[in-house]
């Protein structure tokens, strides 16, 4: 059996991997440098994105294949949906890289090199994780899926823990806590995934996804699917596999949180899409599990998000809720459902990235205030820090508002509306009314969630809404006001952030005028 290598097709994965290896090599060769690694990383991600780009426009049904056997099976196959996901992941990772740039290229305490040689390591971690993410949706067999998924997960655990040494010690310790939360969940989930793979093999007698048209043991296949979904669902933060999400999001550095909230999801969804497509070829299987996960995720996520007082935590729970939306179409196990979920994810990706970029920007302005914040690290990302943002910094507030409206699915952010439409359509085609009604109620609930934030954005400063989010920072009630006041006159936002905000906003606006619909 001769394997047909086709490295060009695999380039979206290879480019970041090569960049990662180069980064490590450059570090060995020229230790102590910081920026070159980041530039290399950016180049690798861009290269991957460029390689994935042609796949987006290939006609439906075509795939870019690599590593194929003569019998037609390929270990790597990327159709248009997969390519879109890959492109999203790579560009998302690039955004994260830009977001993390100042931090990762900064000197350690005392002005010297970080003791760990942090810049190359984190860059390499980011690149390999992204490579894993990119590889997942193209996986053609269980082995590729398991390995690439682990490749996408393990580096992120470490990324959470590897924070700047200039941070306060308790804050760094918290980052480790966050890493532990993610680690334990990912370990257990991998166990489930492995079990699922075993059941899959037991049910179909094969480890490949294609060609499972008939199975001897459909109930085993369902079990396998449940286990695989469970193993993947932790990554997409679906209830009940979501518990790590708020802990880790709040603990990790913001760029890493951004990565977890966006790029990581692509891996999870990619895996789900692979599984669902493989299941879809099998007659007469349904997956109630996904429907339950979707319903539980959006309900729990929205309800809890309703009470959050911190932007990052709110986004964490909103991620949980959005996971439900991503899963929603998959409950019908059709290939249309897969593209629906993919399309939703892309919109979610852009909106969440934009929201995080703005949160980072706002936190940056708060951070530079001369007042040392006794309220603790939460103050910079507290919702209260966004009070009056619409007046103070409309150019940040409007994009953020647009992102939130997209997540909520309210016009003028038509992109969000269309995404919701896309996600709901398969469910209604299937006439799963209970799920549809739960989803519909969650639209409203979701809007309530994002509305709280919008209210804070739009509220005028010093308005007597004392009992609102202003009290978020607990003891630091007075400080809030001060820091917010600083924000109005605070330092300028980094040009890189402006570029990101501009680009992502343009994407959302474009998506609202000419919505993509399904991929």
């Amino acid at each position, binding site marked *: 059996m001769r394997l047909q290598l086709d490295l060009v097709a695999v380039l979206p994965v290879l480019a970041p991997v090569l960049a990662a290896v180069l980064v490590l090599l450059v570090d060995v060769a020229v230790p102590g440098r910081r920026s070159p690694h980041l530039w290399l990383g950016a180049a690798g991600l861009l290269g991957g994105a460029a390689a994935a780009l042609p796949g987006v426009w290939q006609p439906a049904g075509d795939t870019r294949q690599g590593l194929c056997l003569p019998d037609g099976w390929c270990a790597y196959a990327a159709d248009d949906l997969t390519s879109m996901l890959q492109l999203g992941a790579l560009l998302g990772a690039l955004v994260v890289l830009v977001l993390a740039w100042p931090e990762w290229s900064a000197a350690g305490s005392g002005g010297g090199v970080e003791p760990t040689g942090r810049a190359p390591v984190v860059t390499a971690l980011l690149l390999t994780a992204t490579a894993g993410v990119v590889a997942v949706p193209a996986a053609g067999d269980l082995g590729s899926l398991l390995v690439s998924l682990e490749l996408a997960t393990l580096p992120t655990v*470490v990324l959470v823990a590897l924070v700047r040494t200039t941070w306060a010690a308790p804050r760094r310790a918290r980052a480790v806590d966050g890493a532990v939360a993610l680690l334990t969940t990912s370990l257990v989930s991998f*166990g489930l995934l492995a079990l699922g793979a075993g059941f899959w093999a037991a049910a179909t007698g094969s480890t490949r996804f294609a060609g499972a048209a008939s199975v001897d043991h459909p109930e085993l296949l369902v079990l396998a699917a449940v286990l695989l979904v469970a193993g993947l669902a932790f990554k997409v933060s679906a209830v009940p596999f979501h518990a790590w999400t708020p802990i880790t999001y709040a603990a990790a550095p913001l760029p890493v949180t951004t990565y977890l909230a966006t790029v990581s999801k692509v891996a999870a969804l990619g895996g789900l899409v692979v599984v669902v497509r493989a299941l879809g070829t099998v007659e007469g299987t349904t997956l109630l599990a996904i429907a339950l996960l979707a319903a539980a995720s959006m309900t729990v996520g929205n309800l809890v998000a309703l009470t959050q007082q911190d932007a990052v935590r709110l986004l964490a729970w909103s991620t949980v809720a959005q996971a439900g939306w991503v899963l929603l179409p998959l409950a019908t196990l059709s290939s249309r459902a897969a593209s629906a979920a993919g399309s939703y994810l892309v919109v979610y990706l852009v909106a969440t990235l934009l929201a995080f970029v703005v949160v980072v920007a706002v936190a940056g302005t708060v951070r530079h205030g001369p007042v040392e914040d006794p309220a603790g690290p939460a103050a910079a990302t507290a919702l209260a820090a966004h009070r009056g943002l619409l007046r103070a910094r409309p150019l940040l507030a409007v994009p953020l508002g647009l992102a939130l409206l997209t997540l909520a699915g309210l016009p003028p952010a038509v992109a969000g509306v269309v995404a919701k439409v896309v996600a709901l359509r398969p469910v209604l085609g299937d006439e799963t009314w209970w799920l549809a009604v739960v989803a519909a109620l969650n639209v409203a609930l979701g809007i309530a969630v994002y509305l709280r934030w919008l209210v804070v954005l739009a509220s005028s400063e010093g308005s007597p809404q004392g009992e609102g989010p202003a009290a978020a920072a607990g003891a630091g009630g007075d400080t809030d006001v001060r820091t917010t006041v600083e924000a109005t006159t605070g330092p300028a936002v980094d040009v890189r952030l402006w570029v990101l905000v501009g680009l992502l906003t343009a994407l959302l606006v474009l998506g609202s005028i000419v919505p993509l619909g399904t991929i």
Partner: protein
Amino acid sequence: MIRPALPYLLVALLAGLGAYGILARRHAVLVLIGVELLLGAAGLLLVTVAQTGAGGDAGPAVLTLFVITIAAAEVVVALAVLLALYRARGHVDLHAELDDRPRGGEVGDRA
């Protein structure tokens, strides 16, 4: 000839014990042991399938090898993180609180 039911039973048992181990232990390393049991169960399942039901396909067997290797990689990172945890907190207790969010406090504004 062999009855695959036997290894399958062992798979179920190991998985159950693994789940129990994960949930019943506080020490992080012991939780890791539970995970290893879970992975062992998966491996056994794959091997059993490879030897009794795959019709000579080497896929499941190879997958076992991959699982074992991934597990190794995981353990490496896991132990490193646990060490970091130990250095940071002085314990590897998974019952310790990982989250510092405030308890109680203001309920958000109206819905």
